[in-house]
């Protein structure tokens, strides 16, 4: 294994940045959910890379396993909420989600 750990961390940082920027500048609720998945994947990559540096136990990989499970649950619930919101308003723009305003 000759590729150093820093390279993986930099790739994960750029991935996280891309996801965060997508979450900030987009309005489509589906794209927002996909940006969250990007950020979770970046964090997972960091955990696995740091676990690779300390191969004594598998703590980072176990964490990644649970994060994948939570991300799957989050995607299911988030998409169900998007579907319900679309039925109510016939749109998926996040700006139209103002049901709790005033």
């Amino acid at each position, binding site marked *: *294994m*000759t*590729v*150093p*750990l*820093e390279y993986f961390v*930099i*790739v994960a*940082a750029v*991935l996280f*940045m*891309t996801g*965060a*920027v*997508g979450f*900030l*500048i*987009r*309005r*489509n609720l*589906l*794209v927002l959910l*996909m*940006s969250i*998945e*990007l950020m979770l*994947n970046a964090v*997972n*990559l960091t955990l*696995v*890379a740091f*676990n*690779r*540096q300390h*191969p004594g*136990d*598998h703590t980072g*990989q*176990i964490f*990644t*396993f*649970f994060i*994948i*499970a*939570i*991300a*799957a*649950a989050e*995607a*299911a*619930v988030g*998409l*169900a909420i*998007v*579907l*319900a919101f679309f*039925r109510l308003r016939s*749109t*998926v*723009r996040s700006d139209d989600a103002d049901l709790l305003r005033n």
Partner: protein
Amino acid sequence: MNKLELAYFGACSLIALVGAIVTVGAKNPIRGAMGLLSTIIGIAGLYLMLAAEFLAAIQLLVYAGAVVILFLFVIMLLGPSAQSKRDARGAVARYVGAAAMLFSGVGGMALVMRTQSPAPTALPAAPPQFGTIESIGHELFSTALVPFELSGALLLVAVVGAVAVARGKQVDPTLLPAADAKKPSASPSPTARAAGQTKEARS
């Protein structure tokens, strides 16, 4: 540095990063989902490189096989209206996004530079059993047994909740309680109106 490993690393990270940019930048959500798929495959390749074979398989099975397919189903269920007209936010949000990108990039670089090792060092050799299904499963069922079982409960609750939220208001009108049927709502759905009518006809 081994050229072949570096080339594999570069190819996988290029696939992942290009997929991420496509996910964020694509106007068509289906194209965005394909970008997300590309990112997931690239990251699975990086997991393989980091000796996490079990996680690479899980990544492909759960993310590429379930989550992206779920996204595609919902995008196709919503039809062309899933593609909103003016999608990107205004100038302020774009500047905030660019500033966040710059800030986290510079911060990450500074953190990497501040590490103890002056030059990038190669990772230590992994033991032969590192990251295999056997060793991960052993750890999962001994030290992390309670969280593992709880994640099963979490997934069950998430599935039930998703069904309950996405099913909407198509309930059998005869099962509605009286208070719900009498309560005037701002924009009653057809089923709620029908329920109110049946209630009035009965009373």
